[in-house]
């Protein structure tokens, strides 16, 4: 009985330590989508910029000619200061693209949705900039929702 309790404690500590060693490389798809009607160079540049920061784990971005939406995830230990990180990244992107409307987010849902739009762009499922703009508008609206 005693041995099994000790074994349980060892297992518990081991799990905790395994949790701490989650050091993955930044995931960012930097390839250009086939669809040339909607230029995604700005999104790729933004992804490169955000991926260059060491706390970024995943980054996805989409853009129209006027708007840029960047969603990224950060390492768990940086989540306490995510608001400051968001502000800094938004400022950095604004400096790089001064005449664009920029939105950034670290929300899981928005990350998923942005990835979905990226995939749709790659698979040529979004044909016009108007359709993309509509999807981005929905993303922005979702990111501003408080309750």
């Amino acid at each position, binding site marked *: 009985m005693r041995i099994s309790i000790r074994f349980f404690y060892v297992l518990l500590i081991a799990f905790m330590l395994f949790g701490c060693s989650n050091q993955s490389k930044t995931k960012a798809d930097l390839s250009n989508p086939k669809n040339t009607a909607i230029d995604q160079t700005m999104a790729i540049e933004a992804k490169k910029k955000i991926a260059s920061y060491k706390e970024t784990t995943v980054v996805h971005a989409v853009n129209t000619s006027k708007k840029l939406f960047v969603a990224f995830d950060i390492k768990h230990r940086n989540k306490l200061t995510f608001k400051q990180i968001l502000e800094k990244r938004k400022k950095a992107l604004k400096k790089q693209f001064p005449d664009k409307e920029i939105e950034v987010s670290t929300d*899981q*849902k928005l990350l998923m949705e942005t990835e979905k739009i990226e995939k749709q762009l790659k698979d040529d499922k979004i044909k016009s900039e108007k359709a993309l703009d509509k999807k981005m508008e929905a993303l922005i609206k*979702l990111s501003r*929702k408080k*309750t």
Partner: protein
Amino acid sequence: MADKKNKTIPPEAQQYQQLQQKHELKRPIFKNCLKAFLVGGLICLIGQLITTFYIHVFNFTEQTAGNPTVATLIFLTMLCTGFGFYDRIGQFAGAGTAVPVTGFGNAVISSAIEHKTEGYILGVGANMLKLAGPVIVYGVFSAFVIGLIKTILVQWGGF
């Protein structure tokens, strides 16, 4: 202080107290803490799973999924309390079940069940928040004090 207090107690009672102290079982504090940690953590894990479910299945963001998660957890607690299951977990885990929002739900629902026989208005309605009322009052008050401290620190402290 203790001697002064003991003087007022008759010697038989003092003897009894000594005997009682000798035979009293020591509370296993570490074991209780571990139980509370594990069960409280398990409740939080269930909450996280519900949040993830809402994010993936419905159109909720991490921020907006909080309210429906709390509502769902309280609903589940209501069922568990009604079936008498939550009390058993509470006996095993102590604070682990009282600290999360499920403890608040349990406090409301158990008093509602207890006072049902006194009628719906003067029984359930009047007594439902008897236990949970102080939680709301002091919760709001603590939030106010912490908000005040934060405002002072941010506005004048330069943090």
